[in-house]
Every structure is written in structure tokens, then in C-alpha cells.
């Protein structure tokens, strides 16, 4: 491969390194700096360097698509000893991999990352824990970029865990709030379940490929072929189909954990306890997308198994609907957006399951921008009015002009109104599922769910918009007078608005589109950029119609400061309560985690203390009892002692005259 910018590829490792350095500096000296913001600027600087480099590398990849890997760092080496499963040993490597997928992710992560960092400078300025915030955020950025550039699944997992921990700390940023602390715990543990499954999948691949024969030995190749099907397409009949299916399911489990897919989706809405910026960066744009990314990079051989594909489709499709339904009733501005994130991630998973990996990534790409935009705008609102309760807000479009516009753009994009970014990608997802359903009838129901979700999406996001911005005054008069945010906050909003408008159309630029079509080594991926056959156009028209319908409904119910309240005796009440209670899943999870598991462990503890250790004490007691009883023989009366002597004598005589003659072995008989 050649190209002016390819010279940069060997330096790709600098992309994660820049924020990492920022992390070290802020982490060590942040608290000692004269003004806490300085730490913030260091972090912003790190993010900026990362963005410049990352974008340049991505551009380089656009100009000359190809695969560049650098596996120079040997992390863990098992020298082979000629026997066993790994006759020539193996070495686990850390490296960088530049290819279309990582290029796409690079753009997303670095750009959003930088903007959010910038935004944070003023958004967070009231906080005392600022250095901690920037240190953790930089660490997150570094890990996320490490994950994006990961060269093999193990490295992927390594950074995967690190971003998990960062998210844990950032969710718990206001650690003195019990709610925040327990939300962080919940997030970590739920995703941990997924991680463990993911690890299991890694083991299966590891062993299978190590034993798959010459050339596929782990030692030889690290994992790059996990990313690029080419070596694997020769492996269309993998060593053990069952194991491969299982591995696919395990990987799916991991992805579901990170990307909050059903049933591991409980943690994401609660994760909104963290600062809004964190929600924007981690729980909307980047980390939660890692699951989708994982599915994308492994889709090559997950795709081998129809079972896996169906499982992915099912989970994605169902989650889309499930989350959107909950978003429709919630009254917390951030949580609504969080549910919408879950639902949109469902779209991406759906597309990948349907076999259109790049379509999924396409939606990831656009979604990152408009969802970050929505969060930052929401952040600006919260920053201004200091509440998250939609029903207290209202009429903010006058004061927060830029914010309201930004939110509006984000909302339209999310609702899939052309020509905004969301329109192209979501539309593409739908049509690709439609296409897949032609050959796999089982996909139809999920297609229907996804399609229905379009309406709900438009409805809930505009419900938020109307409740927040329309009307003439806040419903809660006690709210402080709102002011438009400073430039550090508005500029990111504006930039993201631009991206939310353009990102979708960008793929029609051949170079950029190239990234999405020429997923190197993938089976040729149809659908990106969208090709408008008559069916597609039909689908688009209908979906746009649904979106518009959703917006209209929202306007009717909530527009101009109206507040729609469901009649108490309405048949819909139970449903509403069900949705508000999140289908009681959270309750069930808490019950299981805090009651059942804890009760079991208490029981084990009891057994440990009273039965196992009790036995030990039993021995002690046995001996001391024995001792006390035997001591009675020591009566102090000498005649007793004499008696013992005689008894002993008698015993011997019995032994010598009865036992010995009786036992030939003793020379008797």
C-alpha cells in the first residue's frame, strides 16, 4: 500500500499514547497544579493530539485502503516444547492494526473524545474532583483508542476491561451519592458477566486456531486474521462447528454486556448517574459501541453459524423495541436519551446479525455524532436549569437558542428525517434487514419490531424536545434563570450539529464510502452507501412517514407547553406502569443479586464457621475430654499404682499364653 499519509501508520501507537501521557500527568500532578482547570487543558491537549493523528491516519487509510499491522511488542511468550496443545508454544502480542474498521472508529472516538473534553472544561468547572475527572477521562480515551487499534482479541479484551473500569469510576464520579456508587457497581458487575463470556469465547478461538493446523498457530499470527477473514475463509469448515457456534454466542454475550443489549441492558440507564459529559462520550458514542465493534470484527466467522446470526438478529431487533418502549414514558431527560442509545445499538447489532456488518458500522458512525450531540445539548440544559426532570422544564428555546437548535438537529437525525445523518444509516439498516429477511424468513418479526421502533423513536425524542424547549416558561417557576452556555460548550455542540447533519451523506464521497464498502477481507458488503432500488425507496418513504408521524404525535401531546396525562382509569395505565418499572427487570436483578446470592453466601459462611471449623474444634474437645477422664486414674493412692502394675502383668500373661499360641504368625501353635 502506498500513500502520502501511510508513513504515519507505524506511529499509530502514539494515538492512544497521547491521552495516556495526559492521564499520567494529570493523575500525578493534577491535584498540585495551581488551578485545577490546567489539568483539564492538559487532557484536552492530549485528546487534541490524538484527534489530529487519528484523523490523519484515517484519511491515510481512505486514500489507500489496506491493512497495516505492527506486532512488535511481545507481551507473553510460551516457548514451545514440542509436545502438547501448543507444540511450538505461542506468544501473546500487543500491536496496532490500521484497517478500514479501525479507521472509522478512530474518527469517531478521537473527534467525539476531543469535543467532549473541550466541553467538559466549563461543564465540570464547579467540581472539586476535577483532576480525578480528567485523569480518568484521559485514561478512558487511551484505553478506548488502544481497543480500536487492537491487533488481536486478547489485546482487545485487555483494553475492553480497562474501558470498563474507567466507566465504572466515571459513573461513580459523585461517589458520595449512594445512587452513583451502586449504579457504578451494577454497571461493572453486569458488564463483567459479559466479559467472562467473552473470555470464554477467546479461549475457544485460541485453542481451535492453535490446533487448527500449520499456519494458523497462534504463535505464528497473533490474531490479525480474526479481523480479516482472508485466512479464515479457507477455514469455512472450522475444526469444530459446535465449538464455533458456542464461541459466537459467547462473543455475543460479551458484546451484549458492553453494548447493553437485552438482557444485560439494565446498567446503562442507571449509568446516567455519572456526569452528562461521561454519558455523552462513554455511554453514547464510544464505549457502548465497542460491543458492536467486537461483533463487527468477529462477524467473519460468527457469520459461519446460522444459529449465531439468528441469535444476534433476535437480540438486536428485540432490544431496539424493548428500549424504545421504555424511553417513551420516562421523565428524566438523560435516561430517555440513554434508552434511545440502547435502542439504536440494537439497530446496529441487528444489521450485523443480518450479515451487513458495514451497515452496522455505518449506523454506529452517524449515531455517535448525533447521540453525543443530544447528550451535550441535554448537558447544556441541565447545566442551565440544574434539573433533569422534563416536567419541570419548558420554554427554554428562548434562552438556550443554540442548545435548542442543536438538540433539534440531533432529534431530527435520530428520528431519521432526511437529509440528516440518521436518515441514511437507519434507512440502510432497515433495508438490509429487509434484504436478509428475504432469505431468512425468521428475521421478519424483528424487521417488523425495528420498523415499528422508528415511530416510537421519533415520538420519544420529540416528546423530550417539546417538553424542554417549547412553551413559554418553565413549568417549575423555582428553576434558576437559564443562560446560554459559554463557548467551550457551544462550540462542540455546533461542530457536532454539523456532523449530525453531514455524517450520513459523507459516505457518498467515494474515499469515505470506500472505508465502508471495502471492509478489507470481508465478504463484499452491499448496502453502503445506500443504493436506492425501488424497494429501498418504498421503505424509506414509509419509515420517514412513520418518523414524521411520531413527531406529529409528540407535538399533539406535548407541543407548546401542553402536558398530556393518561386518564387514571385508562386501560393503558398498567402498561405505563410496567414501562416506568422497566418491566420489573431491574427489581428482579436487584432481588437476585442482593437477596439470593447474599443469602447463599451467608449460608456458606455459616457452614464454614460452625460445621467445618466445628469439626476441628471437635477434635480438640475430644482430646481434652479424654485427657481429663484418663487423669482420674492418677488417683494418688500408691496401691492403685501397684494394682496397675499387676494388671499390666496380667495382660502380658494373657498375651503370651493365649494370643501368641493362637497366632501361628507369632511363632505360636
Amino acid at each position, binding site marked *: 500500500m502506498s500513500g502520502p499519509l501511510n508513513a504515519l501508520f507505524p506511529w499509530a501507537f502514539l494515538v492512544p499514547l497521547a491521552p495516556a501521557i495526559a492521564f499520567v500527568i494529570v493523575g500525578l500532578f493534577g491535584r498540585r497544579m495551581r488551578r485545577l482547570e490546567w489539568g483539564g487543558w492538559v487532557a484536552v491537549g492530549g485528546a487534541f493530539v490524538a484527534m489530529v493523528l487519528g484523523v490523519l491516519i484515517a484519511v491515510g487509510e481512505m486514500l489507500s485502503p489496506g491493512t497495516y499491522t505492527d506486532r512488535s511488542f511481545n*507481551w*507473553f511468550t510460551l516457548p514451545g516444547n514440542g509436545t502438547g496443545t501448543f507444540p511450538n508454544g505461542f506468544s501473546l502480542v500487543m500491536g496496532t492494526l490500521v484497517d478500514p474498521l479501525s479507521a472509522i472508529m478512530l474518527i469517531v472516538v478521537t473527534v467525539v473524545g476531543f469535543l467532549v473534553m473541550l466541553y467538559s472544561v466549563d461543564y465540570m468547572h464547579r467540581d472539586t474532583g476535577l483532576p480525578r475527572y480528567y485523569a480518568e477521562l484521559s485514561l478512558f480515551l487511551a484505553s478506548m483508542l488502544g481497543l480500536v487499534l487492537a491487533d488481536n482479541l486478547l489485546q482487545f479484551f485487555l483494553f475492553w476491561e480497562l474501558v470498563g*473500569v474507567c466507566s465504572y469510576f466515571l459513573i461513580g464520579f459523585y461517589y458520595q451519592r449512594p445512587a452513583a456508587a451502586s449504579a457504578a457497581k451494577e454497571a461493572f458487575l453486569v458488564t463483567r458477566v459479559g466479559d467472562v463470556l467473552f473470555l470464554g469465547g477467546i*479461549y475457544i478461538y485460541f485453542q481451535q486456531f492453535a490446533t487448527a493446523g500449520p499456519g494458523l498457530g497462534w504463535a505464528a499470527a497473533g490474531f490479525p486474521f480474526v479481523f480479516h477473514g482472508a485466512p479464515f475463509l479457507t477455514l469455512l469448515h472450522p475444526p469444530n462447528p459446535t465449538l464455533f457456534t458456542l464461541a459466537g454466542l459467547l462473543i455475543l454475550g460479551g458484546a451484549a454486556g458492553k453494548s447493553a443489549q437485552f438482557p444485560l441492558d439494565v446498567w446503562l440507564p442507571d449509568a446516567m448517574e455519572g456526569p452528562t459529559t461521561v454519558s455523552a462520550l462513554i455511554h453514547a458514542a464510544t464505549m457502548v459501541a465497542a460491543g458492536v465493534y467486537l461483533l463487527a470484527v468477529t462477524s467473519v466467522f460468527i457469520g459461519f453459524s446460522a444459529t449465531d446470526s439468528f441469535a444476534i438478529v433476535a437480540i438486536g431487533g428485540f432490544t431496539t423495541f424493548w428500549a424504545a418502549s421504555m424511553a417513551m414514558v420516562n421523565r428524566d431527560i438523560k435516561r430517555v436519551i440513554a434508552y434511545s442509545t440502547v435502542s439504536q445499538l440494537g439497530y446496529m447489532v441487528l444489521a450485523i446479525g443480518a450479515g451487513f456488518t458495514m451497515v452496522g458500522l455505518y449506523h454506529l458512525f452517524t449515531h455517535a455524532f448525533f447521540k453525543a450531540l443530544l447528550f451535550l445539548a441535554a448537558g447544556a440544559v441541565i447545566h442551565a436549569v440544574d434539573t433533569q426532570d422534563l416536567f419541570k422544564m419548558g420554554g427554554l428555546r428562548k434562552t438556550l437558542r443554540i442548545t435548542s437548535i442543536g438538540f433539534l438537529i440531533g432529534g431530527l437525525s435520530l428520528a431519521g428525517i432526511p437529509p440528516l445523518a440518521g436518515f441514511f444509516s437507519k434507512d440502510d439498516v432497515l433495508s438490509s434487514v429487509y434484504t436478509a429477511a428475504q432469505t431468512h424468513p425468521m428475521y421478519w418479526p424483528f424487521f417488523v419490531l425495528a420498523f415499528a421502533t422508528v415511530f416510537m423513536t421519533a415520538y420519544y425524542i420529540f416528546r423530550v424536545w417539546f417538553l424542554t424547549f417549547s412553551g413559554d416558561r418553565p413549568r417549575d417557576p423555582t428553576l434558576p434563570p437559564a443562560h446560554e452556555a459559554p463557548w467551550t460548550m457551544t462550540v462542540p455542540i455546533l461542530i457536532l450539529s454539523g456532523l449530525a447533519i453531514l455524517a450520513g451523506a459523507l459516505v457518498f464521497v467515494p474515499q469515505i464510502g470506500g472505508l465502508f464498502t471495502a471492509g478489507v477481507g470481508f465478504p463484499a458488503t452491499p448496502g453502503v452507501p445506500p443504493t436506492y432500488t425501488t424497494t429501498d425507496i418504498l421503505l424509506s418513504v414509509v419509515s420517514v412517514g412513520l418518523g414524521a408521524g411520531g413527531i406529529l404525535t409528540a407535538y399533539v401531546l406535548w407541543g407548546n407547553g401542553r402536558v398530556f396525562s393518561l386518564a387514571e382509569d385508562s386501560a393503558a395505565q398498567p402498561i405505563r406502569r410496567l414501562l416506568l418499572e422497566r418491566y420489573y427487570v431491574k427489581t428482579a436483578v436487584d432481588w437476585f443479586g442482593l437477596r439470593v446470592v447474599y443469602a447463599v453466601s451467608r449460608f456458606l459462611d455459616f457452614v464454614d464457621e460452625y460445621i*467445618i471449623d466445628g469439626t476441628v474444634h471437635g477434635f480438640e474437645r475430644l482430646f481434652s475430654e479424654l485427657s481429663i477422664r484418663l487423669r482420674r486414674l492418677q488417683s494418688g493412692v500408691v496401691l492403685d499404682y501397684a494394682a496397675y502394675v499387676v494388671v499390666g502383668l496380667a495382660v502380658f500373661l494373657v498375651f503370651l499364653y493365649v494370643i501368641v499360641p493362637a497366632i501361628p504368625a507369632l511363632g505360636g501353635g
Partner: protein
Amino acid sequence: MLPILSLTLATLFVGTVITFFSGPRARYVAAGVSAAFLVEIAVMFLQFSWPAVAVAPTHFAESESYPWIQVAWLHVNYTVGIDGISLVLILLTGILQAVTVAYSWTERREPGAWFGLVLLTCLGCFGVFVALDVLLFFVFWEVVLIPMFFLIGFWGGPRRRYAALKFFIYTHVASVTMLVALLVTAFYSHSPSLDFASLAGSASALAVPTQIVLFLSLFFGFGVKFPIVPFHTWLPDAHVEAPTGGSVLLAGLLLKLGGYGLIRWGLEILPTGLAHVQWILYAVAFASIVWGAGVSLAQRDLKRLVAFSSINHMGIVLLAIALYSSLGLLAAVLLMFAHGIVSALLFMVSGSVHHTFGSRDLASVGGITPTAPALSTMTMTGALASLGLPALISFPAEFTALLATWDKLGYWVLIPLLTLVVTAAFYIWMMQRLLFGQPKGIPAGAHDLPYAEAFAMGVLVVLTVLYGILPNLLVHFIQLSPVAGLP
């Protein structure tokens, strides 16, 4: 070549004696001895010649052998030697000795005796790791007990006397069993001497049932030190009552003696015996893993929690050893090293929590982060490392261990794998209760870590990160052992 092992033994011995009698100045002597010890360890690593790492597994290096007891029927030699496994564990010994001395720098009560006993414990552990003769091995093995008995019993908590006695007797019974088994092995196989080499050479001549019985008794003998469920109940008591330094050595070194003994004197001498009862070891290992994790979840006492988590981790070690594969043993040793560092860190944490806030009860102390940011950072590092966070020391070990398990046992790997969630659960919950939430149970004037303790923990944190990022630093050496040739 420098007889570095005997030299080190001499250094430690002389150092211990001097320390005992140098009263208030003992800590300086102890520090000097630790420094010397580390230097000698460095020499060992050098003599272990880095370039040789690439070559196939070698046998014992640095071997020295002198006749000790020689009568017609009994040939005991003073034989010492190290291979990669012992080398790594010796490194652990040196590190823990140094940090323990540093941590207890301000010990006021009988400092001479305190530091002397600490050094003596490490001397014993070092001896165990280098001894290549049954008697020598047993001598050092028992030498470890005495100082630990006094460390717990004299400097310990309220129930220290009970705990010390329990520890002493329980482990002594186990060692005795182990000794019988080794003697029977030696004399029934007509081994020319009690040296490791000759035992390993001749033991295969024994009848298979004999080997099985012998291996099982060895397993019990070493297992109690591990400790394995259900012979573990001495551990929580010992830990809870022991002073911090004692817990550090107990968890960091003494538990490793069990693992090392099982590898060196069980698995390498009676492989046939192992082969026939592997399933028993698996069962015990799984039991320990699940049990340790499950019980930890119920603990309110920070130290008790860490103690039970040790049972869980050592269960994984046992599992990896029982696999009897080179990958498994690599993982086992790596995990022992990792657990040595991490548990030491966590026990220091609980010690500092105790004397900073006057209690270790997670229900009564909480939200300490604002008061003691440094301490809470250490706590987080320790907990995250212990639950196997990548880029920290335990991860490469656990990853390899479970990989080896999957390789040999297939789906059984699900047991330890899913237990990882529980492990994460109790650590995360511990952090939530101890570090986060509203401050409670914080006595007035509670301060952050004093320098000595901060230094000791800092060293461990640095090592945790360092070896987590560069595990090859250890892996290269562990490979240089006779067992690396296994399938």
C-alpha cells in the same frame, strides 16, 4: 561460580541474629539485611544468564552439595539449588521481606524481636525454596512455623493466642504427614540418598498403589498450607488475628510454600501418583475456588474477606498445578507470584484501615476516600488487581491458568470462569462499602497513610503494574525448570 545460595543463607542468618540483639536499632539492621538479600537475588538472576532463556528447560542451577548426616543406612546431604520456579518465588521472598520491614518501620513493641522474627520467617521460606534434600527441606519448612507462631501470638489481635496455637498445630500435623510420606518414598524405593534428585530418580520404581497413597498424603501435607477446602479453617483466624506484617508474610509467602512443595516434592517425584488421583485434586480445587469466593461475599471484616479470597486464588493455583501441563505450571507459579504481591498489598491496606479508622468492619467504616485518598487508591489497585483486571499482575496469570484448564478439562473451565464474576462482586462491593458513599465511622483526626506505609504499598503498586504490563519478565525464568518439558 559464587556459592550464592549458601552465601544468602548465611547473610540472612547472621542478619537475623544481629537484628534480634540490636533492640531499637533493629529496623536499620533489618533494612540492611533486606537490601543485601535483594542484591544477592539480583546476582542469582544474573548468574541465571538471561541469554540462556531461549534454550530448552534446564535443571537446577547454583547447585551445592555437602555431606551432612552420613551413616551406613542414612545419607543426608546439605544440597541446595534453584530452577526458574524457585528463582521467581525467591524474588517474591526478597520483595515481601523488604516491604514488610518498610511497612512496620515504626514498630515500637520489642522491635528487635519483631524484625528478627520477620527476617527469620523469610529465611525459612528462602530455605524451603532452595533446599533439595528431604531433611533440609523439612527443617526450613518447620523453621517458618516458629517465628510466625510468635508474630501472631505476641503482636496479634484479641484472639491472637488461640489463632497462633491453631495455626501452629494445624500446619504442624500437616508437615508431619508430609515428612512420613517423603521418608516412605525414600526408603521403600531404596533411594541412595535423601536428595531430591535421587528421590525423583528412584520413586518411579514404587508400586502404583503405593505411589497413589504417598501422593495423597503429600497432597494433604502441602494442601493444608495452600490452604485447600476443607482444611482451611486455620487461615481466616490466623489472618484476622495476625499483625499486618504477619498477615503479609503469611499470605504472601507461607501459602506459596504449599504450592511450591506440591510442585517440587509432589508432582516432580510422584507423577504417576498424581496421574491416578488428578480428579481428586480437581474436585478439591473447584471446591476451594467456589467456596473461597462464596464465603468472601459474606464477610464484613475486611481482613477476613481478603483471607477467604486467598483461598479462592490458591484454589486456582491448585487447579493449574493439578493439570500437570507446562502451561498450567507456568500459570500456577505466575499466579503464586501475583497473589503474593497483591494479597500483601491488600493486607497492608486492611492493616492501615484498621489503625487509621480503628476498625475493619465494612459495616461501620465507610466513605474513607475524602479522608484518605492515597489509601483508597491503594485499595482500588489491590482490589482491581485481585479481581484480575488486565494490565495488572494477576491477569496474565489467571488468563493462562484458565486457558490451560480449558485446554485440559474443556467445559469444566466454566466453574472458575463464572466464579470470576463472584470474585469481582465481592471486591466491587467491598470498594463500594469502604471507599464510596457518605463518610461514616471516621474518627476525628484520622489521617492519610504515614510515609512508611505509603512507601511499602507504593512499591507493591508499582510492581503490580510493572509485571502486569511486562509479564515476560517472569515468564522467561519460570520456563527454566524441569517441569517445563511437560505436554
